């Protein structure tokens, strides 16, 4: 099996992953049973529809209709983010209701809210979540900071794994602070002196951290049991899971949670070579992250949230020098393994379209937010499937008629000839349900290709 995979072309690999997506299995490797023949038919049609839109070879039967919300299903179900982060039954109820009521072509899954108790056990510092820094009725938000200091690039470059375990994790998880004392595992080589490496594991703070780690593991298992059950139930109902996993642009890996926005921006001036070198080191790691997830979950779609490359955040020169080369390498690394990268460019990407179209045709799916879609269709759209552009403000403040009109316009222009998937532009929390419904309805009726 392993050898066969290595011999396949990227196209064959992609086809193999699509086939696995089409024949979903549970974690034990058994086929997931559909609740009805209609559900099975709908499931397969949905994947084929998305596949056709992405590959730009065949016109799909209609424009696929996706909904990729943030906390909207939770508010729609009349619950608070705090409730679903701590009560996994409620989490499943909310997201199931959302799927059944709106019937999008995919299930975004209910992983995003995350397990509240798990974050508590580890004393997660990187985010404030309901009851821990933000009110119960609001979603979690990131606490930006320099979790990696400006003078720590060498440590990251020399040994990224050790930097994460002994420096970064102790900073973002309060309960893991004692891990700063842990040995470098690559020093454990032979009998002489080997026991020195294990001394830290005898120290009470490290032992407490290990206990917290086990407790966190238990909670993570409990949570994944619940979200996994929902995923499989949704498949049984005919809703394919949107993604096999996620990975990031190396610039964002550094800029989002290691150095922070300000940190990474200053590094472009003060230590550009180290920043570039660190991104080189992270590139294969980001590829592996996406490849492993896609293979494990039998789903070719890998989500890539793009942040710091949006219009205005970098000059064209900076984008071409610091952002795009490593992002492209990650995307090509994924494509070579048969994966469909699904970058989500929140904000505007107008100034990037000419640069990012340097990709093989029919291999990627771009989620765009406030980008000029007509312009995007003419540029990036010639090599990639586009999605998105339904504004958060339209969904929250507009009317069903306005929503339908906007969707129709997108179907007529960007959807022309295929290569477009109806979708919200940014991950939304609040929206008028009737607008969300209108968006799905009009796409399923008006979006049919004749």
């Amino acid at each position, binding site marked *: 099996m392993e050898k066969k995979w290595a011999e396949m072309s990227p196209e064959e690999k992609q086809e193999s992953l699509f086939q696995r997506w089409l024949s979903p299995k549970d974690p034990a490797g058994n086929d997931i049973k559909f609740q009805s023949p209609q559900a099975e038919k709908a499931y397969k049609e949905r994947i084929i529809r998305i596949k056709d839109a992405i590959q730009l070879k065949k016109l799909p039967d209609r424009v696929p209709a996706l909904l990729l919300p943030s906390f909207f299903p939770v508010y729609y179900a009349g619950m608070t983010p705090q409730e679903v982060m701590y009560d996994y039954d409620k989490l499943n109820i909310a997201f199931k209701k959302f799927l059944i009521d709106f019937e999008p072509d995919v299930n975004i899954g209910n992983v995003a809210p995350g397990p509240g108790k798990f974050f508590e056990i580890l004393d997660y510092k990187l985010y404030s979540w309901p009851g821990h820094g933000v009110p119960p009725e*609001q979603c979690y938000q990131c606490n930006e900071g320099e979790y990696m200091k400006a003078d720590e690039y060498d440590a990251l470059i020399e040994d990224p794994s050790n930097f994460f375990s002994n420096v970064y994790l102790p900073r973002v998880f309060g309960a893991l602070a004692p891990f700063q004392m842990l040995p470098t595992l690559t020093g454990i080589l032979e009998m002489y002196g080997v026991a020195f490496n294990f001394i830290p594991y005898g120290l009470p703070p490290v032992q407490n951290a290990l206990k917290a780690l086990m407790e966190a593991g238990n909670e993570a298992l409990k949570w994944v049991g619940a979200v996994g059950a929902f995923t499989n139930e949704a498949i049984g109902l005919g809703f394919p899971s949107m993604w096999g996993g996620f990975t990031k642009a190396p610039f964002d890996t550094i800029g989002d949670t290691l150095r922070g926005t300000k940190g990474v921006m200053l590094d472009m001036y003060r230590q550009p070579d180290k920043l570039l070198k660190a991104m080189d080191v992270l590139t294969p790691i980001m590829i592996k992250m996406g490849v492993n997830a896609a293979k494990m979950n039998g789903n070719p779609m890998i989500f890539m949230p793009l942040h710091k490359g949006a219009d205005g*955040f970098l000059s064209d020169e900076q984008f071409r020098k610091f952002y795009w080369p490593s992002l492209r390498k990650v995307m090509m690394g994924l494509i070579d393994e048969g994966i469909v990268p699904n970058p989500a460019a929140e904000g505007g990407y107008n100034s990037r379209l000419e640069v990012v179209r340097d990709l093989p045709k029919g291999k990627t799916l771009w989620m765009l937010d406030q980008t000029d879609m007509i312009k995007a269709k003419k540029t990036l759209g010639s090599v990639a499937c586009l999605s998105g552009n339904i*504004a958060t403000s339209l969904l929250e403040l507009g009317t069903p008629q306005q929503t339908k009109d906007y969707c129709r316009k997108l179907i007529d222009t960007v959807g022309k000839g295929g290569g477009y998937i109806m979708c919200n532009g940014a991950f939304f929390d609040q929206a008028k349900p009737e607008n969300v419904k209108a968006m799905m309805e009009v796409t399923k009726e008006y979006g049919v290709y004749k």
Partner: protein
Amino acid sequence: MAKDVVSSLSDLKEKEVLEIVQDRLRKNDDPLKILDDARRGMEIVGKRFASGEYFIPDLIYSGEILKQITDLVKPRLTKAVEVKRLGKVVLGTVAGDIHDIGLNIVDFMLDTNGFEVYNLGVDQHPQVFVNKIKESGAAIVGLSGFLTLAFDSMKQTVDAIKEAGLRDKVKIMIGGGQIDEEVRKYTGADAYGKDAMAGVALAKQWTGVK
């Protein structure tokens, strides 16, 4: 050293401008003159940002350089710097939202364009805005928000300003990732700014500056 503070700073030459400042301080140059040069340099940075030549990283970097210049010069100051200001602006991210990057960029741009900015910070409740408007007498209010929940917080803040009887005394602008004209109408603000420069243009327009 032929280079001067104004051009070195506006060209973002960190080492060079700090050397010039240290050199001028060694020669007992008037610290107020150095600061005035720095201010002029920052004005050029602002203009370049407005014209699309500079981007967010350039603003952040220039701010960092300016901070170092101020730190060098401050111990030499004998009297406070008096700068003529165009007007006062109360600025903050609305309740429930802790995003600050956009907020601080707008603060920076208003400041370099001659406005006196009262930056309240993130997650600020409507009453905090009302109190600051009363205390400062500011005629312009800027509400920032990145999340969709900010739409409601902005509306509540505008309502609170109305209830405090201040609505006709202030002009209110809003801004943030998902903000557009629809959101402006919903919140009852006077205008929305697509980016920091739009915010500056609004503030100038409202204070009658050309």
